[in-house]
């Protein structure tokens, strides 16, 4: 092997790389929060009394789950302007990531809600709780407790998926790495560094979710 590795050329760019990490984390956090909300609403819609709501939710979930994220983000960023709906790269990225995360978490959440026994609802009604209270305390929290490990896996996947929005020039770690690549021509080195940064972030996320699980979802219930 004759190639000389030279990571030192990347040193001047450490601030940019750090900024890339921050943008990636921000992008993930926004999309995960929005995605979780969409996921809960979609899971509810799939169990709704109204056929239209069920069909709409089912169609949304199947379309997102069976097409690649790259095509989704291209469709939103390049396709929708033809209909007069245009976005900045970052907004398009957030929209695409939230919709993607929402569809995948909807399935996970639905599994959790299905696992809540019928008697639990009835007990809630018998205790005189209002529907919203029943949903919050008897359905949502126990359901989240059951599915939280699966859900956090999904959230880490969303973090990794953010790298794809570099293809619509939304600014995050991958796009910053690409621009450093064009300046330094040290492709292998910069992508090794970016990969290590992603690895660190995904382990960080996983640890954070484990912590949340332990504090918020562990017994005894506070």
């Amino acid at each position, binding site marked *: *092997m*004759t*190639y000389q590795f030279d990571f030192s050329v990347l040193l001047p760019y450490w601030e940019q790389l750090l900024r890339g990490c921050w943008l990636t984390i921000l992008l993930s956090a926004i999309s995960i929060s929005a995605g979780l909300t969409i996921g809960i609403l979609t899971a509810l819609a799939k169990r709704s009394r109204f056929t239209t709501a069920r069909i709409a939710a089912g169609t949304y979930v*199947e*379309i997102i*789950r*069976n*097409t*690649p*994220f*790259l*095509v*989704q983000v*291209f*469709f939103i960023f*390049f*396709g*929708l*302007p*033809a*209909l007069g709906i245009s976005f900045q790269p970052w907004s398009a990225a957030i929209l695409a990531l939230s919709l993607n995360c929402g569809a995948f978490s909807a399935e996970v959440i639905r599994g959790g809600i299905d696992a809540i026994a019928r008697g639990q609802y009835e007990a809630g009604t018998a205790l005189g709780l209002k529907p919203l209270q029943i949903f919050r305390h008897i359905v949502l929290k126990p359901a989240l407790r059951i599915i939280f490990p699966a859900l956090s896996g999904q959230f*880490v996947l969303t973090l*990794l*998926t*953010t*790298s*794809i929005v*570099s*293809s619509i020039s939304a600014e995050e770690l*991958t796009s910053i790495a690409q621009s450093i690549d064009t300046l330094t021509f040290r*492709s*292998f080195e910069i*992508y*090794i560094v*970016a*990969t290590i940064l*992603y*690895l660190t972030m*995904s*382990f960080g996320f*996983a640890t954070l979710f484990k912590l949340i699980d332990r504090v918020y979802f562990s017994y005894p219930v506070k």
Partner: protein
Amino acid sequence: MIRQFGLPEALAILSGVQATILLSLIAFVGGGVVGLAVALMRTSERTWLQRCAGFYIDFFQGTPLLMQLFLVFYGLPVLGYKVNPWIAVAIGFTLHASAFLGEIWRGSIQAVPRGQTEAAYALGLSYASRMRNVVLPQAMRISVAPTVGFMVQLIKGTSLAAIIGFVELSRAAQIIASATYKPLLAYGCAAIVYFVLCFPLSRLSMRLEKRFAVKT
């Protein structure tokens, strides 16, 4: 001169599906062979083998597929191998698939009741025979549903090859989109083709999962 979006353009996008399917198959077969080795290492009794396989899996599950492709694509020439894009993406996706399949199959191997291994042990079967004749056939049944589910992931994942310039379904749609200025149609077409490929597999995976859940 802007091209119109007509039947030839739709067919041009459709022709990209060949590369998508071929790439998915290569990744699945290659990933399957390496993945089996990873799964066997992960479930081996030797701690260092377990650790190596664990690290391998964590690496591929903790980094974006796009970065893995970039590393192979830019890394192979650096290591002195001049390869064509086909081989580069095939290697990239094979490594990626092997880690995920390895983890799925590890789970399946461990889901086979412990007594089965112990019985094979008591009968004096060798490791190879124990695995081939006792554990793996049972593990295979458990792993069918998640494996089919992963194939959907893999087919969707091959779209990322478009970013490094490999012409498959997504890249074909991109080319047609910029030639016709009809991105909505072009990406819509691509999305429909992916959906037609993935939806039956997703359904199959779900049905297999249910069938297995009833049996146990």
